[in-house]
């Protein structure tokens, strides 16, 4: 008798609703717990990753501070806010690093660009891209040293009209079979340097103005 009642109850809409609701509630609880438990370690891992990328574009000799701890946000030419990491030595901004985005063959190419206070490129590294393996991925430092060609260059060197790939009359090599990818990177870097030049004063304003006390301990 009770099995019959149970089987009747199981057929009803109430049971179905309870079952679905219960499952979802349980899943949601688990996910909330897991999210809270892993949020901090994940943020830490991502900070380590970012730091590792930043160390590649800003030589450690140029800064005494934790690059992740001293940042400011500036709006670039298109109005999008850009997070700028600043390298400090003796209270002065010696270099900055920020992310620029180029349009590649298969989507956006994210590049981290390090610029010295005098406007020279310290280094650039591709953070992520969706370019064709074997053709466009030579922009990665792991695959090719093409990206090193930008080190030491600035907006005037080479002159603005030569900031392009050779096919466009510029100074930079394209890859055989892939022109769009390096063109996207070159344009992104040029845009980044122009952004820096336009806002140079804001980029290198001494951080001491923002916080009282010693500028080197601005871990806000």
């Amino acid at each position, binding site marked *: 008798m009770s099995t019959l009642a149970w089987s009747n109850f*199981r*057929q009803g809409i109430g*049971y*179905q609703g309870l*079952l*679905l609701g219960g*499952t*979802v509630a349980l*899943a949601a609880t*688990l*996910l909330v717990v*897991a*999210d809270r*438990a*892993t949020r901090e*370690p*994940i943020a830490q*891992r991502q900070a*380590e*990753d970012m730091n590792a990328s930043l160390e590649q574009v800003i030589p450690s000799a140029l800064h005494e501070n934790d690059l992740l701890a001293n940042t400011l946000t500036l709006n670039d030419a298109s109005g999008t806010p850009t997070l700028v990491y600043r390298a400090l030595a003796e209270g002065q901004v010696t270099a900055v690093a920020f992310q620029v985005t180029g349009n590649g063959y298969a989507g956006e190419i994210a590049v981290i660009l390090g610029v010295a206070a005098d406007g020279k490129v310290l280094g650039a590294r591709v953070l992520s891209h969706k370019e*064709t*393996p*074997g*053709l466009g991925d030579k922009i990665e430092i792991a695959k090719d040293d093409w990206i090193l060609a930008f080190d030491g260059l600035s907006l005037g060197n080479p002159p603005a009209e030569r900031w392009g790939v050779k096919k466009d009359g510029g100074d930079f090599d394209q890859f055989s079979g892939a022109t769009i990818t390096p063109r996207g990177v070159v344009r992104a870097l040029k845009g980044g340097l122009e952004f820096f030049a336009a806002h140079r004063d804001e980029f290198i304003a001494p951080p001491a103005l923002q916080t009282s006390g010693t500028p080197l301990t601005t871990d806000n």
Partner: protein
Amino acid sequence: MTTATDKKAGIQWGRITRDGLWSNNVVLSQSLALCPTLAVTGTATNGLGMGLATTAVLLVSNVLISLIRDLVTPEVRIPVYIVVIATLVTLVDLGLNAYAHELHKVLGLFIALIVVNCAILGRAEAFASKNPVSSAALDGLMMGLGFTAILVVLGGVREIVGSGTLFAGASLLLGQAMSFLELTLIPDYRGFLLAILPPGGFLALGFLLAGKRVIDARAAEAKRRESLALKTA
């Protein structure tokens, strides 16, 4: 337990193992999970990583689905299974990101893809929801390993033809101790891009599918001859 049921269970477990690894293989026989199969097998290492992550999810999801099989009614089973699988995959994703970050950097893109791997829902629906926990666990493990084997073979073939290496980047996935796996089979190879791009995946998979057909047909033919010989003798 009597020896008869032991023997029966043994036969059943053998059948589950054979089904998962070969005769009912996820890719070769069920033609499921083709999207991840084609998408991630540019290298053998990627195939291995995706295969192992999928195996882990498949094993746990089969166990969970089997545990709740008497509670779940047929009318709402699909949403319940999907919620269970999606939760599981998200937990794996968060856990790997937090505690095995290097591995997550290699596999991160693929892990979210496991949710839409129809093989997992397929096994929940076709096997785990009708069988006891122990069989469901074995089925999940064997189906997962069969899937992993195909991904590694497919990735290996495409990698050798496409870039002349095998297991490139294996140390990122398995740790520095396994770096001896990374082989350069063809030095100064200029690469054969087609094999690495999606069409190469379709071509290689086609050859694999055809290969299984040939092997199965030969085995069936041998069996037929054997039984014919027995009858005439």
